[in-house]
Structure formats: C-alpha cells, structure tokens
C-alpha cells in the first residue's frame, strides 16, 4: 500500500510511530522517517496511525475511498464547468496529481489528460534524499497514494515540447497535439548537473531528483565507498551528507558560501547547522569550491581538486547545486517564462510576456513564481513540497470556478528538512530578512526557534526540533508583528538579542526560496533566454 505524510503539517507527535512502529520511525525528538510502500499486512496498523495523527497529516490509498464533497467545494460548479470540457495538465508529479484529484473532487466531469515525461506514475521526492538513501524505504516505492481511482487519460513517458496558446493546444514530442479548454503547467524543475560535461559523465558523479538517481546513489553508498564528496551544502547536500554518516561512510561536503544552508537560512543559522554536521563527523569545508573532478581511463571518478589547494581521492561525488526550472518547452509560447520559472498571479493564472494575465493557463508547483503580499508582492519561486500541494489545490479550484469564487494563494511558504535526528522547519521567507534572533530554546541542544525580521517586522521563523511552536510564529508573520519580538515566553534563553541575518545579497544557486525581480532596473518585459543561469 502507499503512504505519504504531509511533513509540513506534521508536528512530531509520534502517534503514528506508536501505532505502526514498523512503518513509521522517529529519529530524535520529532524527525519522522517512514516507509512509503509498506506491505499490505501493515494496513490495519497504518489505518490506526492515520486516525490517530493529531494533525491528520497521513494519507494512504484506499479502495472505494470514503471521500465526501464538503458543501464548500461543490459550490464552485455550475455554468463555468459546462464551458470547460477538456483540461490538460503538463507535469505528472506532486502538483499535477494533486490538481487532478482536486478537479475530480470538486466535480469536474470533462476529460482530464495528464502529460508527463517520466515513465513513472507520480511519486514523492522528499524520501529520495532521506529514508531511501539509508535503505529504510525503496526508491521505486515512493509512488504517491491516490484517494480514489479517478478517471484520467495518462500520457506518461512523452514530454510536451510546445504550447500553442492561440490554438489552445499542447504539442507533444511525438508530434501529437492535445487540445484543451484549460491547462495547468506543473513541470517543476530538474537537478542542476555538474557544469563540466565530461566530468559530469564520469561514473560516480551523481545528482538526485528521481528514483533512478536515488537508487543509483543508494547502491553506491551501500557498496562502501572510500569517501563521498558532496558539492553544495544546501538542503539536498546536507541530507545526503547526513545519510552518508548514518551509513558510516566518510563524507566531505564543500560549499562556496560561508556555511551550510546559508543560501536559504542565512549564515547565522547556517553555522549552527555546520556544527551539527561536524559533530556527526562530516568533513565540512565552507568558502571552498570544487575546481575539477577527475576520472581514470575507464571513466570512473577518482579524485577532486578543491580551491583550498587540496586534492582528495573520492569515488562518489554528489552535485547538489540547486536546480533548473523546466521551462524550455514554453519558449516562444508567449508566456512570462524564464530561469526563475513561469510567472503567475496569486490565483495561479499564468502571466504572458507583456505582463497580462491569461485566462486559461494556470501554473503550480516548483515551476511557478507568484507575487506574495506578505513579501511586498514580490515574486516568490519556491521549491517546497507544501507549496506545490497548496498551489495545485488553488489552481485546480480556480480552473473550474467563476471569477467571484476564485481563491488566492496566500499561504506562507513552509518547508521541512530531516538531517540526523533534527527536524528543521521553516515558515515564511528567511532570506527576506536583515536580522535574526533566537527567542526560544537552546542552540547548544539544537532545540530552538529562530525568528527573522526585515525592517522591524517578523518575516520568517525556523525551528530545529521545536515544530510545535512554529504555527505561533506563522501567525506573527501574517500579522506583520514587530521585530524583534519583545514578549515573554516559556524557554527563553538568558540573552536574546538580534544579530545581522547574513542572508545572501543575491539569491545563491542553492536557495530554496528566491525573491526575484525586485529592483526597478530588473523590471523589463524582455524575456531571459538560454543559457539558463
């Protein structure tokens, strides 16, 4: 059976791990690792876990699902729906699948086509850099559960190569054209490869985005390599390094920035993460770049030369260099699509190259960038599971709802990362900050909440193993509460004073949030073309 936990919601109550200990396992206080593809024999225990989860974060597939339409959602139907006979979704992954199931749940009865270039049915990526690498879940097993078997025409294994907006057609690689009345762009992103092509092709140089990637890396790690090199200490790099240590594999992690996660969380919190990795035995080198990866005559990776002058023998190198948005197929389509993604409004409608909102084309997930009122209406490009889900739900709802019933995607960005026994959670945009303060908990124990502020208001919060408090801080962000927070709380450290957040001035290549296009000089209607960054 298929299991998935919405770890954005999960607060680490461990009720699932009590109820089904072979499927759900806790690490430390609140980090949860689970098997997404447990045997049918676990079903009863898993159903108990589903029922028990205090925040109802566990989803499983169910035969004959007992799903009900809430009165709220079924109201969107009516004339609007009559006019829409065909919906096409390009990108058959988290966002695409969620949109499809919402469309059906809200009563869309027309034809629904899902186009995806991967041959797999939609699957979940976060386990790939976590439980899959340490062998707690299988790479092929992270297929996303579906609540009810809905009626969808699947076109898997065929990429879309173009979009004809005027003719309302999606063009496929096999030459076929698929007509639509409404369409959703959910093509996400791909891992950025090691930039030097010959070295990138060496046996032992990997990236991680797909089950094949994860399975390949898992095998290499299980084979007991002499040393693994992780290039880039963003979230993915850090999770891979943690998996290596868990398997007792020697690992060096290099990053050109000042600290791990500094691109996403700033260097202050990054240095805390640095200490965590060092405590677990990672050879962490910051401010260092990999200058070359070198192989032997058989094309196998042998060594890496670093900018600190050292050369090290390695047989596996994981390039965790961030990502590239899958927008090439939209070239020439006339949409505002570029390296930062496809622009849309808060209702998920795509914006065309002139900045005019389109009516029939919607965008959701990692490929989207959208203006967020909490962040001065700046365009956010997020690479977060929770955002893909939330945005897909809103896009799907809006696709079949008349103007007056449309929703806005105003949810604060949220994500999690699991490293060792630490559950790191973030809400808001930590890079949208000038200062940071730690008002709750203990850095020494790595149980704390950090709060970020920009020009005197709270803009983000990050928790290490303290996720039960995070929604309080989310409320403060939504209210634009003053920074630094000055109230008295439980678990206040002895001295609380804000320090510069040390967030990157310009988004780095591994940021999981980037605020784009905010200086007047960047505001122009010419579109960026290849090469993409």
């Amino acid at each position, binding site marked *: 059976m298929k299991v998935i936990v919405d770890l954005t919601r999960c607060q680490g109550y461990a009720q699932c791990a*009590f109820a089904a200990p072979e499927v759900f396992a806790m690490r430390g206080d609140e980090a949860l690792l689970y098997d997404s593809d447990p045997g049918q024999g676990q079903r009863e225990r898993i159903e108990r876990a589903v029922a028990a989860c205090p925040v*109802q974060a566990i989803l499983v597939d169910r035969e004959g699902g007992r799903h009900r339409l809430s009165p709220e959602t079924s109201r969107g139907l009516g004339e609007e729906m009559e006019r829409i006979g065909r919906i096409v979704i390009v990108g058959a992954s988290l966002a695409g699948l969620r949109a499809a199931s919402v469309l059906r749940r809200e009563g869309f009865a027309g034809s629904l086509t899902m186009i995806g270039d991967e041959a797999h049915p939609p699957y979940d990526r976060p386990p790939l850099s976590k439980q899959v690498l340490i062998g707690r879940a299988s790479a092929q097993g992270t297929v996303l559960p579906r609540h009810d078997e809905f009626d969808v025409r699947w076109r898997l294994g065929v990429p879309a190569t173009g979009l004809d907006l005027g003719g309302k057609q999606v063009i496929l690689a096999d030459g076929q054209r698929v007509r639509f009345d409404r369409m959703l762009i959910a093509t996400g992103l791909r891992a950025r490869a090691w930039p030097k092509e010959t070295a990138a092709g060496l046996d032992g140089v990997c990236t991680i985005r797909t089950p094949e990637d994860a399975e390949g890396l898992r095998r290499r790690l299980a084979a007991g390599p002499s040393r693994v090199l992780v290039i880039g200490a963003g979230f993915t790099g850090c999770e891979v390094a943690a998996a290596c240590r868990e398997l007792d594999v020697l690992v060096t992690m290099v990053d050109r920035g000042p600290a791990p996660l500094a691109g996403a969380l700033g260097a202050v919190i990054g240095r805390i993460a640095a200490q965590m990795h060092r405590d677990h035995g990672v050879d962490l080198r910051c401010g260092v770049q990999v200058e070359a990866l070198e192989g032997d005559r058989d094309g196998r990776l042998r060594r890496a030369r670093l900018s600190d002058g050292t050369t090290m023998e390695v047989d596996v190198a994981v390039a965790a260099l961030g990502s590239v948005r899958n927008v090439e197929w939209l070239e020439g389509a006339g949409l505002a699509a570029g390296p930062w993604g496809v622009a849309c409004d808060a209702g998920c409608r795509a914006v065309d190259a002139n900045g005019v909102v389109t009516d029939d084309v919607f965008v959701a997930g990692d490929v989207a960038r959208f203006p967020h009122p909490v962040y001065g209406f700046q365009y956010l490009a997020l690479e977060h599971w929770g955002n893909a889900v939330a945005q897909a739900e809103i896009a799907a709802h809006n696709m079949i709802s008349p103007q007056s019933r449309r929703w806005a995607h105003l949810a604060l960005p949220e994500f999690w990362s699991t490293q060792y026994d630490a559950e790191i959670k973030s809400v808001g945009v930590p890079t949208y900050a000038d200062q940071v303060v730690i008002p709750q908990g203990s850095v020494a124990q790595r149980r704390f909440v950090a709060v970020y502020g920009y020009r005197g208001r709270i803009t983000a919060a990050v928790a290490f193993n303290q996720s039960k408090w995070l929604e309080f801080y989310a409320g403060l962000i939504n209210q634009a509460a003053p920074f630094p927070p000055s109230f*008295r709380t439980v678990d206040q450290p002895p001295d609380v004073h804000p320090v510069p957040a040390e967030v990157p001035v310009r988004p780095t290549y591994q940021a999981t949030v980037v605020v784009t296009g905010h200086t007047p000089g960047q505001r122009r209607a010419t579109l960026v073309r290849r090469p993409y960054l």
Partner: protein
Amino acid sequence: MTGSSVWQQILDHSHRADPYPLYTELRKTPVRQVEDGSYVVSTYPEIVALLHDPRLSSDLRHLPEMGTVSGEGPGLPPSFIRLDPPEHDRIRRLLTWDFGPPHRPGRVDGMLPDMRVIVTGLIDDLVGKTRVDIVDEFAYPFPVTVICRLLDVPREDEPRFQALSDALIQVADPTTGSITERDRQRNKAMANLGQYFGGLLDARADQPAGDDLLSGLLRASGGDEPMTRAQVLANAALLLVAGHETTVNLITNGMLTLLRHPEVLDRLRRGEEPDLAARVVEELLRYEPPVHLLPETRNTLDDIEIAGVTIPAGSRVTLVLAAGSRDPALTPDPDRFDPDRAHNEHLGFGGGVHYCFGAPLARPETRIALTELAQRLRNPRLVADPPPYRANPGLRGPRHLFVDIDAVDPARP
C-alpha cells in the same frame, strides 16, 4: 458580565449529562472573563492557537496568588504536566525513553495482546449476569490493570491509591474551591502518592531493575540529565492518576454513545471494517471526550490579544477542549456522532508540547474494549439514559453505566 451565567451553568452539576447546548452558547464569546477573574476559551481556532502559544505557561508558580505553593506538596517538585520547556521537555523525554519511540518504538504495540487478554477475562467474568455496570465491572478495572503493569505497581494496592487518586480528581474540579485551596489539597494527596511510590522504590532497591517504566526512571538515558528521586516520585504519581481516571471515561462514554447509535454498534459487532474501531475512538475523543476542560492550568506570561480580547499578563486561563471539538469551525455538523468523518483534528488529548503522554496507550485500550464489548454483549440495552454522572465538569463521565444484556457470547478467535 454576560458570560458568567452560562459558565456557572456549565460548572453546575445539574448540567453534567448534556453540557453541549451550553457550549454552543459559550462559543458565542470565544474568549471571556468569568466571575473569579480567570479567562475561559471555548472556540476551536483560539484553543489551538493558545495550545501552541509560548506566552502561556503551565507552571502555576508564575502566579503571584500561588505564593509559596511550590510543587506537588511537601518535598515533591511539580510533575511535568505543570512545568514548561525546557524542563518539561527533558522529563517527558526521560519518561518516553522506556515507553515509546525513538528508543522503544514497539513497546505499546507489544502490549496489545496482553490488553486483549485482560479485556477477555473481564468480560468472561460477566457470564451469567443480565445486568452489568460497565464502569465498575469493566471500564475502571481494565485501564487500572494496564497502568499497574506498566509501572509494576501491585494490583492489590489498588484500594489504597484509588482513594488518593479520587482525592486528586476531586481537586481538579473547579467547583470545589479556589485555585489555591485546591492546590493545597492536591499537594497533600500527591505527597501521599509520592510516599507510596517511595515505598515501592525502596522495596525494589536491592532487586535488579525491571523493564517497567518506574525502574527505568532512575537511570540516566538518552543524553539527558536524569531525574532526582523526588521528580521520579512526582511523575510516577502523575502517570498512575492520569492512567486511572481518564480512559475509564472514554470507554464508558464510548459504550453509552454506541448504545445511542445502534447502527455504529452494529457495524462494530459485525467486524467487517478493520479500521472502524480506530475511527470510532477518535470520533469519541471529539464528540464525548473524557477531558472537557483544562481548568486554570495555564497562565499568561505576557499580554495576549486573541479574538478581540486582551488577556493581561498574569491571568489564569481555562481551555474548554470539549467545546472546541464541537465547534463548527473544526468540522461540519459537529453535534452528530459520525466515525466516518474524513478529517478529525479533535482536541481530546490537548495539543502542543503537553499533548497527552498516555494517548498511545488509551487509544488501543479503548479500541479493544469497545470492540470486545460490541462483539460479546448480546443485545445490550441502556437501563437509564442519561446515566448518573460524576460531579466533575472537567473530567467528565458516568459514575455508573448499567446495561441489560441477554447473554455474554464467547470471545471470537
């Protein structure tokens, strides 16, 4: 003060059988100050927000009126339900060490067969009767036996700690006196229980440590500084009482609710839906929970603005969990018992860092209890509806639940 009358009615014993219409009234003012100066919160979003608000403390020592009242009575520090992080979290981790994940993930799962044996035995004892009291003959002895085994407390000592435990529950009833008076009473009873546990520990001093929770508590574990002996006693007393006086009500409320909803009882009896019992338990925790309110267990460390009201620093706050779980903001048609709800984020076990420690135990206890009762009591009928209730408005449940039956069927394999 318009809110006072409805609050007084809720506390009044005459409304114990059906406080829910009063909760509907109460929710019209989500946050209200009542006669004794404390604040009462009754709506779902506000309760959830406060359970996760670090400006609320569970440590009564912050209140000036508590004066010198220190902990759980002479020589005993507060148990962790009355502490804030980081101390609360440390003790909770220590208590969890031998109880559940991450260190002992399978412990509760491993207790399930034993639970079924206990339940089977208690129901076997009903054979030949045509009228049974679900409370005294079943719902009370079952969880008591489980918690005694977990703590390795001799079951024969039950009469002794039952009196103490009763006294403690009594003082949790806000109608029995001011918070300071009640706290003094509470301390006395806790001190007695602590003494009892002290005796147990002394008696075991020269035996090898067993696998019970209590023995584990004196050891250091998981990188946390261990508890002092006094802390162990205070927290052992808490576990015994909490494991005693709550699950009995969930099982009893459950049987009562099933008898009032025979179609659900029948589905349970047929046993064709393997996940039904778990969902029945969760819906009970929403619809007829044992813990209705957390009476003045929280106090404000700072001013808190919520639902248009400013609760000033230093105030006592009562969260009416049972009113929150019946808030239409949580789920449509909240006054209907419906185990098929797609989404049930009830407040039955609280939330945030003090989320019920014993929940993983209470859930299977109740699931197994109700399933076995449904499948073995032939043609059960309520003798009195409503049944007589205990006085306590916070820990609410029937004092007796008499049920007439035609026969007791043998246990299914």
